[in-house]
């Protein structure tokens, strides 16, 4: 299988009041298409930063990131935005649903950026909600849903554009054991049935155990380890 994500000698630093803080040191990483990778590490290790760089919402200070043949570290802001909407699906720890939109409308958001007609969009949304098992809650607002249900809507939103890569930052971090379990089963399914490449940042060893590959980050350095 081909490498769909290639991280080449990437470093990231922040400047605060002229003090440079280095968060990632010379990271190189390859992820194959269809792989399910977990990123673990203590807080401050830089795992979320690496996730942000790969998903294009931040830029590396040094190095390249090539995804599906495109070097995204070279793209400008608006190209990146476009690229993101086509290629990446996000799942956040705190779901980040828009509170004033219904479940349906939340899932519809990413495809509003495309040229699909209203009927086509409806089809995509319903398919996505079907996959996550929330068809009967389409018209509910986030505050009418449980934590687990909210996260499922968020996942539906992440897959509605049928992106090749799913990026998840502590997806079960705010859920109870049962809901967490359901979400992980869903993610497994997305990986195995739909061949989505998944990169997941997590604290939870149980969640990590679902992945093919676990990598550890410590103070900005990648440590070799495989399952």
């Amino acid at each position, binding site marked *: 299988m081909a490498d769909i994500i290639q991280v080449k000698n990437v470093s990231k630093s922040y400047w605060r009041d002229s003090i440079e803080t280095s968060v990632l040191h010379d990271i190189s990483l390859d992820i194959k298409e269809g792989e399910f990778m977990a990123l673990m590490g203590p807080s401050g290790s830089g795992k979320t930063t690496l996730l*942000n760089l790969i998903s294009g919402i931040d830029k590396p200070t040094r190095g390249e990131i090539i995804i599906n043949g495109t070097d995204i570290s070279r793209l400008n*802001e608006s190209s990146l935005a476009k690229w993101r909407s086509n290629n990446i699906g996000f799942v956040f720890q705190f779901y980040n649903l828009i509170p004033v*939109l219904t479940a349906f409308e939340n899932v519809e*958001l*990413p495809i509003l950026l495309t040229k699909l007609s209203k009927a086509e969009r409806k089809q995509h949304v319903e398919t996505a909600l079907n996959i996550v098992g929330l068809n009967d809650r389409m018209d509910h607002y986030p505050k009418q849903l449980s934590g687990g249900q909210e996260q499922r809507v968020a996942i539906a939103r992440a897959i509605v554009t049928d992106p090749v890569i799913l990026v998840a930052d502590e997806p079960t971090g705010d859920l109870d054991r049962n809901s967490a379990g359901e979400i992980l089963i869903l993610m497994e399914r997305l990986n195995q049935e739909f061949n989505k490449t998944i990169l997941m940042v997590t604290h939870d060893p149980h969640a990590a155990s679902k992945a093919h590959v676990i990598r550890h980050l410590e103070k900005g350095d990648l440590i070799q380890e495989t399952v």
Partner: protein
Amino acid sequence: MKIPLKYILRNFMARKLTTFITIAGIALVVFVFTAVLMMAFGIQKTLVSTGSADNVMITRKAANAEISSIIGPDIQNVIRTLPHIAKEPDGNLVISDEPVVIVNLEKQGGGVSNITVRGVSPEINQLRPQVKIIQGRMFTWGLRELIVGDAIVKRFPGAQLGSYIKFAGGNWKIVGIFTTNGSGFDSEIWGDALQLLSAFNRGSTVSTVTLKLDNPENYDAFKKAFNLDLRLQQYEPIIEQKYFAQQSEMLSTFIRVLGIFITIIFSLGATIGATITMYSAVANRTVEIGTLRSLGFNRRSILSAFLLESLFITLAGGVIGIFLASFLQFFSISTLNFSSFSELAFSFALSPAIIVSSLVFAIIMGFVGGFLPSVRAARMNIVTALRAG
């Protein structure tokens, strides 16, 4: 602009209390702005409709108002020799020699006010055909009788049909009420010029002379002949309508200047209110903004979304303000006209131009108030925004 309208509208409804308060503030400001413009327009409208474009009024040059103008009998005769004065079928010139004085009457609710009393000549019907008697009758020539404008009847208990007004050593009976449909004449009292002159011991000296042109196009020719006559050096002609329009300038300008000055100051306050509300909205939705950006919505669509929200708020406030102000049209105000020194009644008048100005005003407030917060929302760094949750 790709962010759905319903996102904007529903956020607009979400923080109901603070949104409502901001809208109320904007509505108040627009109300005042519109009311002031309506007041000034009302004054102008009243005075501009006073008098017509084919009448010429002659006053003394140095006079600031009709009451301080003096035209003696010999000058009145000279005026009669000028060309282009309209004639009645029986050959009489359509000309009115008018003494104008002020009397004090008690207002409804206390206090006294100055009312213009105008003596008119029999040609008045030709001269001012807009005058209609709506109650009672026209006064009888040669008797001490008066007719009053309908704006006076409403405000002065002593000036009702059948009342007597005491002045100049006699009792004058009010026998009729007239209207000119909202012009300045509605705030006046009229009587027989000759009767008033004798009562005030003024001989034949009047305040102003008003005549009708045989054809409005001949005004320039008339004026030329007027200026050529050296006996008329101290006097000047002016189109009747223009004279009264000028009389409204001081008052309406004062109101407009003061009103606009105040409103601009207010609008700064209201705009700041809108800005605060928008900044707060942006701050509260930081995570959301980050999420939308991560989904692929670009900076410009975020900017537009928040700017539109701001515009909705101020537009809503603006519409409410204008709506409330439109009810003012049912009210009329009576006040002292600085120029004539006597009572003038006028209503608040609304015009399409005023509505447009007020809406534009509201939109500008929304744009200015919402701009900086919207820029802040658009410029947010995605990572920091997402972390704010």
